[in-house]
């Protein structure tokens, strides 16, 4: 068991692990995780643990990656609620706002999902029961900005406050009490 | 139909015996029963001659692939292009798969997409034209 190549193969495992830890983009990190699984299977195989290597290959590079991918995909999302009538009017302002939001969210590896609601009560209800993260409604006519965006997630609000420069909308942060959260 | 089913079962038995390399009676019984129990697809299959010809082409493709690899290595092919090729008529899905396999197996060409209307989109590398 004192073959010299073992000493070269084993450092590959911490090397791949470090690459994984310093990866920022979650999707890229997933691919690196798969690489880590392949390298780990190699190390286990070299050390003579055939069963562990097989398990690592099956679970580490196939099952875990697929599950992680679905989880990352469905959790890194911002759900924005709008009213159906606003959507139906198809205003340029709103489209521009959504394009802006998409761009900012993409930089943070998030997606934007639009949810439509029939009236403003349903929209408010959805925000309060945490079905959506933010609402976008028509603002009051006396203000010069035509839309109002309310966000209930602190971190999202901070990001938008610093990066969203669209003149179309005003921003506000709403606190949602946990009492109405019926899980 | 029947002959293709035989080929299918023979393929499964071959993989089983190569994997276990054990010719005891128990192992043979297990292998045969697994080969019959695994689900089979009942889609239409092409004529036996077509299959045999494709199998022969696969055997020929291996040395051809090495020759092409050497050609790419000796003289660099830097030009890329996408061409379309016509699928031969009366191909069943299995035969289309084998055709794609053959084209992709050789290093110079890769099938990008298979159109239902009977076209392959083939990506290939070639040498720069002398002008």
């Amino acid at each position, binding site marked *: 068991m004192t073959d010299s190549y073992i000493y070269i193969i084993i450092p590959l495992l911490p090397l791949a692990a470090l690459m994984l830890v310093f990866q920022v983009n979650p999707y890229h990190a997933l691919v690196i995780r798969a690489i880590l699984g392949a390298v780990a299977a190699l190390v286990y195989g070299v050390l003579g643990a055939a069963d562990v290597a097989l398990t690592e290959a099956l679970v580490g590079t196939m099952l875990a990656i697929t599950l992680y991918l679905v989880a990352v995909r469905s959790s890194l999302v911002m759900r924005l609620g709008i009213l159906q009538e606003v959507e139906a009017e198809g205003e340029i302002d709103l489209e521009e706002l959504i394009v802006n939001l998409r761009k900012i969210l993409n930089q943070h590896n998030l997606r934007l999902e639009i949810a439509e609601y029939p009236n403003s009560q349903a929209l408010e209800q959805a925000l309060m029961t945490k079905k959506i993260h933010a609402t976008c409604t028509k603002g009051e006519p006396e203000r010069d900005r035509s839309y109002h965006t309310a966000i209930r997630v602190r971190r999202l609000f901070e990001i938008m406050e610093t990066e969203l420069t669209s003149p179309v909308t005003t921003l506000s942060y709403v606190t949602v009490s946990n009492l109405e959260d019926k899980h | 139909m029947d002959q293709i089913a035989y080929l299918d079962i023979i393929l499964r038995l071959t993989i089983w015996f*190569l994997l276990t390399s054990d010719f005891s009676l128990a192992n043979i019984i297990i292998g045969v029963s697994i080969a019959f129990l695994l689900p089979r697809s009942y889609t239409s299959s092409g004529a036996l001659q077509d299959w045999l010809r494709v199998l022969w082409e696969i055997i020929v493709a291996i040395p051809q692939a090495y020759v092409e690899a050497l050609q790419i290595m000796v003289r660099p092919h830097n030009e890329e292009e996408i061409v379309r090729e016509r699928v031969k008529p009366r191909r069943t899905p299995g035969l289309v798969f084998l055709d794609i*396999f053959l084209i*992709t197996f050789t290093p110079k060409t890769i*099938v990008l997409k298979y159109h239902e209307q009977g076209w392959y989109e083939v990506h290939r590398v070639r040498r720069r034209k002398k002008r």
Partner: protein
Amino acid sequence: MIEFFSYSCIVIGIIFWFWGTLPLIGKRSVLFKLHSLSVADTLGSMSIVFGLLLKIPSEWPLLLLAIITLAIWNTVLGYVLAYCSSGGGEQ
């Protein structure tokens, strides 16, 4: 004699590996890299396994299965990668 053949097969395979893997670092398109990878990973690995087969014939069933697996899966993988990377847009 057979010893010499097996070693030359393995060395050819390793040369293929290096030749096909080095273009990965450059800035070519995904499809071009896929061509050189098919040289390295399919043909090079097949050559290495064939060299091993000549060297130690007692494990022939396993090595033969490895060659078949390598040929089929790597080729299909090349097709799938080419299809996915060209169809899905390259964000």
